[in-house]
């Protein structure tokens, strides 16, 4: 059924249709409506789940870990400072192989105190062992949440569904909300390989000496390496059932592109508008939107890069003292390739400043005017 809903509610519907059994969350702008609606669904019995109110995000994740270990499908949502407070337990989720699914609304880290979008909050959690899905529309938020339960539970690795503050979270769009029966057919109930039961007691996550810890990390990485193929496979299954394909990387007019704008989140759809405008003016531009950031889609990025004469990676984030984070990753994916195109790195839109089609036009023209990058970072729109 088609509904006009905000991006935050698309997350709530995703968790509801995924039949989350335990939800523990703490409210934070701009995530609040996600858990407001879920708590209403629990109260009205539209969703048969236990809603646990907690006193912090650290506790929210702790409650999710316990519930997941006991065999419940578990969901939470947070943003920015709340995600940072969860940091310790994000490692527990992946190390404990607990397939929690969490929504994170990209909000800039304080100070200065901000509620607007940039990606430094989720990218600061890059190395915690979570899969990360960056969404560009309300529909994709809902679809990705359902897919994430399936992929996470198959691999016993947690997932983060990531959406831009306000540009998605509070923006209303038409969303095709699938039937429960169809989602049930796509997503079977959670059956963990290991779980905490009173009939067979175990201690989980205890002291692990050097003789075992290394192998546990090896196993986590090996399972993470299975994720790209599984994301493609479950994305195709999703398309068969619901008519919408879920890919690691989404291409737009890349096949004959002289310049490919590499983006993530809502900036990806803005870039498409810019691509159309540039093409009207005779510049063969294309857009490659990276949807899955962890595991990093090496093969897909290499495949798209092979079509490009130049690439411009536009980051709404920064690793201070280095580059934009997607820029680093794209360069590392393409390092050593035979026909690697020049790759330019741009920083734009920090703290929720708009990244406009005009900005993408400037970016494309800048990258087209140079034979190779001259600066480590090109800043877009700094008031000088």
């Amino acid at each position, binding site marked *: 059924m088609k509904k006009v809903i905000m991006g935050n509610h698309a997350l709530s519907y995703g968790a509801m249709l995924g039949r989350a059994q335990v939800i523990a969350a703490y409210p934070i702008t701009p995530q609040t409506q996600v858990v407001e609606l879920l708590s209403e669904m629990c109260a009205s019995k539209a969703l048969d789940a236990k809603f646990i109110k907690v006193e912090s995000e650290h506790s929210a994740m702790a409650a999710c870990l316990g519930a997941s270990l006991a065999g419940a499908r578990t969901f939470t949502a947070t943003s920015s400072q709340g995600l940072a407070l969860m940091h310790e337990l994000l490692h527990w989720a992946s*190390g*404990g*192989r607990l397939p929690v699914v969490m929504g994170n609304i990209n909000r800039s880290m304080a100070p200065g105190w901000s509620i607007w979008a940039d990606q430094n909050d989720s990218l600061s959690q890059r190395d915690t062992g979570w899969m990360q899905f960056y969404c560009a529309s309300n529909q994709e938020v809902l679809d990705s949440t359902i897919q994430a339960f399936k992929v996470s539970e198959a691999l*016993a690795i947690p997932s983060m569904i990531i959406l831009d503050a306000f540009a998605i979270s509070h923006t209303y769009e038409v969303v095709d909300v699938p039937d429960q029966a169809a989602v049930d057919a796509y997503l079977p109930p959670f059956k963990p*390989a*290991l779980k905490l039961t009173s009939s067979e007691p*175990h*201690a*989980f*996550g*205890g*002291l*692990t*000496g050097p*003789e*075992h*810890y290394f*192998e*546990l990390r*090896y*196993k*986590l990485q090996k*399972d993470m390496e299975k994720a790209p193929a599984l994301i493609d496979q479950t994305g195709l299954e999703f398309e068969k059932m619901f008519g919408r394909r879920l890919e690691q990387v989404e291409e737009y007019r890349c096949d004959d592109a002289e310049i490919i704008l590499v983006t993530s989140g809502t900036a990806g759809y803005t870039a498409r508008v810019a691509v159309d405008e540039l093409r009207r003016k005779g510049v063969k531009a294309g857009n490659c939107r990276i949807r899955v950031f962890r595991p990093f889609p090496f093969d897909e990025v290499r495949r798209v890069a092979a079509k490009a004469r130049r690439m411009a990676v536009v980051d709404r984030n920064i690793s201070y003292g280095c580059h934009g984070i997607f820029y680093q990753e794209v360069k590392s994916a393409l390092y050593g390739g035979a026909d690697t195109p020049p790759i330019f790195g741009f920083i734009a839109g920090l703290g929720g400043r708009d990244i406009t089609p005009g900005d993408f036009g400037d970016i494309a023209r800048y990258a087209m005017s140079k034979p190779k990058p001259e600066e480590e970072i090109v800043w877009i729109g700094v008031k000088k």
Partner: protein
Amino acid sequence: MKKQKPTEKIIFQSEKEMPMMPMSVGSMLFNKTGAWRNIKPVVDNSNCIQCGICWKFCPDMSITIENEFPVVDYVYCKGCGICAEECPSKCIAMVEEEK
């Protein structure tokens, strides 16, 4: 009192045999935390009211009830003092360890 199952230290020779996450690998058989202790609980059974609160509160399961009185397992007790704090009849004293 329920008898503890005998356990032995498990060493996996291959990652393929290992569970995905660390669980019940018997590390506490060898990690004898009693050595961490500076002060130790000493129970005066003559004042004990046999309520079992010390047994319930011990975070390291180092108190067992034998013949209806608490017995401290000094191999693992870290000397945190929670039992002495919680004891309603104050029959557990925390005594300096002799070095």
